[in-house]
């Protein structure tokens, strides 16, 4: 194989590196020559200390306690997207099922708007988190069923367009600007409801099907937790908008009960890799989020069934608590994953607790 002169020079350079190394070994010294001038390059973008260094490399500590996995690159846009997309997806489902079962038309209309607005806000959030945002359309080069990120990109595309179409078509019909076309409206609405259900749940699969222990060890829980969280937010926003049907309160009671159970499962289901879900700052964020979206709204909503004078106030308080808790839940999951990635103990199957506040967990044997 003949190489271009440029390649030839570079090939020669590799031989030079090799013989230089050999010469140093022969001279019994591995020290580089002193730099001629100040060539300080700074720390670059590599954090100096983002882990607990161990004194040595050993089968008990791994390589000087260095993290094995890489920290997720995702920033605040991702949990916000999980929150907005989850609520919008469930709102589309509420609109469709509501319309089907003869619910209050104004409520159905607001749910539809909620879905369309959330569907419009989600893509910018997702695009902002990309390393190269102008290449966002590359997501649509392929469809890969084995990649939840690919499934999610296509789901979001379907959802945003069908939720927008459902809203535009029904608004045009309601305002009698153009005659109603029930077939088209129904197709858009069913499309939004189905893709909305995927949108609210796939994010759980997305974080679960990764190498991060705190996420993959709870993969069965995350999609359920995210679905409940999304429905909780959608119902709460509709209530705060002024819809006070008892059906909405019933849904609210149901999801708050599911969220309470999810919180209990997180609290009780301790596995070696789930430490960040119940210890340290991420554990406390998860705990507070769980209380705000589970027991608190559950109690307030149940009270609202008894008290007639304060019914509206109680339900509004439950809604505000649920929304805050759901938002916090998304952040807790993402930041717990970041903490989990820095602990080499689980992927390397190292003995003993990794951090002092993890003593309750027995050494994995």
């Amino acid at each position, binding site marked *: 194989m003949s190489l271009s002169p440029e390649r030839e020079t*570079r*090939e020669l350079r590799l031989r030079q*590196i*090799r013989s230089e*190394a050999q010469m140093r070994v022969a001279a019994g010294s591995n020290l580089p020559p002193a730099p001629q001038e100040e060539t300080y*390059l700074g720390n*670059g*973008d*590599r954090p100096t200390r983002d882990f607990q260094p161990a004194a*040595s*490399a*050993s*089968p008990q500590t*791994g390589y*000087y306690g*260095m993290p*094995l*996995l*890489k920290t997720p*690159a995702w920033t605040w846009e991702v949990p916000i997207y999980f929150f907005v997309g989850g609520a919008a997806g469930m709102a589309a*489902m509420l609109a469709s099922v509501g319309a089907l*079962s003869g619910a209050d038309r104004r409520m159905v209309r607001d749910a539809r708007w909620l879905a369309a607005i959330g569907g419009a806000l989600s893509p910018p959030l997702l695009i902002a*988190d*990309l*390393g*190269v945002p102008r*290449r966002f359309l*590359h*997501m649509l080069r*392929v469809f890969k069923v084995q*990649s*939840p*990120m*690919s499934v999610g990109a296509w789901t979001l595309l379907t959802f945003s367009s069908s939720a927008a179409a459902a809203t535009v078509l029904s608004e045009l019909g309601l305002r009698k600007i153009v005659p109603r076309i029930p077939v088209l409206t129904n197709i858009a609405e069913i499309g939004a409801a189905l893709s909305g259900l995927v949108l609210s*749940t796939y994010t*759980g*699969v997305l974080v*679960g*099907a*990764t*190498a*991060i222990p705190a996420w993959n060890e709870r*993969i*069965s829980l*995350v*999609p*359920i937790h995210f*679905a*409940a969280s999304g*429905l909780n937010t959608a119902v709460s926003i509709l209530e705060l908008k002024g819809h006070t*049907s*008892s*059906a909405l309160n019933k*849904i609210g009671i*149901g*999801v708050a009960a599911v969220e309470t159970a999810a919180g209990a499962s997180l609290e009780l289901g301790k596995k070696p890799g789930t430490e960040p879900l119940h210890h340290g700052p991420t554990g406390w964020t998860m705990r507070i989020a769980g209380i705000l979206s589970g027991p608190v709204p559950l109690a307030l909503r149940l009270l609202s069934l008894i008290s007639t004078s304060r019914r509206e106030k109680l339900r509004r308080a439950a809604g505000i608590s649920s929304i805050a808790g759901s938002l916090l839940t998304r952040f807790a999951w993402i930041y717990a*994953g970041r903490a989990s990635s820095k602990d*080499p103990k689980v992927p*390397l*199957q190292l003995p003993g607790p990794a951090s002092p506040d993890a003593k309750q967990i027995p050494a994995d044997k």
Partner: protein
Amino acid sequence: MSVTAFLTDSTLCIGCKACEVACKEWNQVPADGFDFRALSYDNTGSLGHSTWRHVKFVENGAVPGFGGNASEVFSWGFSSDVCKHCANAGCLEACPTGAIVRTEFGGVYVQPDICNGCGYCVVSCPFGVVERRPADGRAFKCTFCYDRQKDGLAPACATACPTESIKFGEIAHLREVARKRVRELADKGFDDVNLYDPTDTSVGGIHAFFIVRGDPKTYNLPPKPEVPTTYLKKGWISAGVAAAAAVAGVLLAFSGSADR
């Protein structure tokens, strides 16, 4: 085209870092910066977006006779780490753009003109190899010198290695070389030599295996790396149950209430 592989034999490594230098020069990988970690002679730490070959420095303590040393001298273990180019690669499965592909040589290659920096490969690698470069936005890792292999050349690191610690060749042949080497060392009395090639996990074997003395965990080589697609079934079942329960619950609430 035959499937190629790396065999990194740490029993031959002298820790000269020629592989790191050669990789950086050939692939034009940016500097990591001067970062004093005070962990042996290693100030790089791990593989990353700007480190595609990384020599690990393990200090074994003063064990008489270990590594042929005098009793008062501690012995070194050096091992040059690299992307494992898994048979079932988590990064490749996770990539939503199709930027990560399997080359005709069996390597896993990130196409820099396709990658949009979504970061999903970063969390899908069970070895913590691929990383997003903040200044650039895209994900980077070892290319297995795809360009050189296309020209029939060995990767830059293997070319520059002065002790043939880094061997490059056809995968089945190299596996045989590795097994022979482990046997040869055992015959010489080195009974703690291990071949790291996790074929019994969902990763299904790697295209860059390692010969190390002692427990591979010492070198941050995970005992049971799993490709994250194995968790998908559980996740989608849970998602399906959650979606069905939500629809059923909402339907029940609306149809069961006089006040909807």
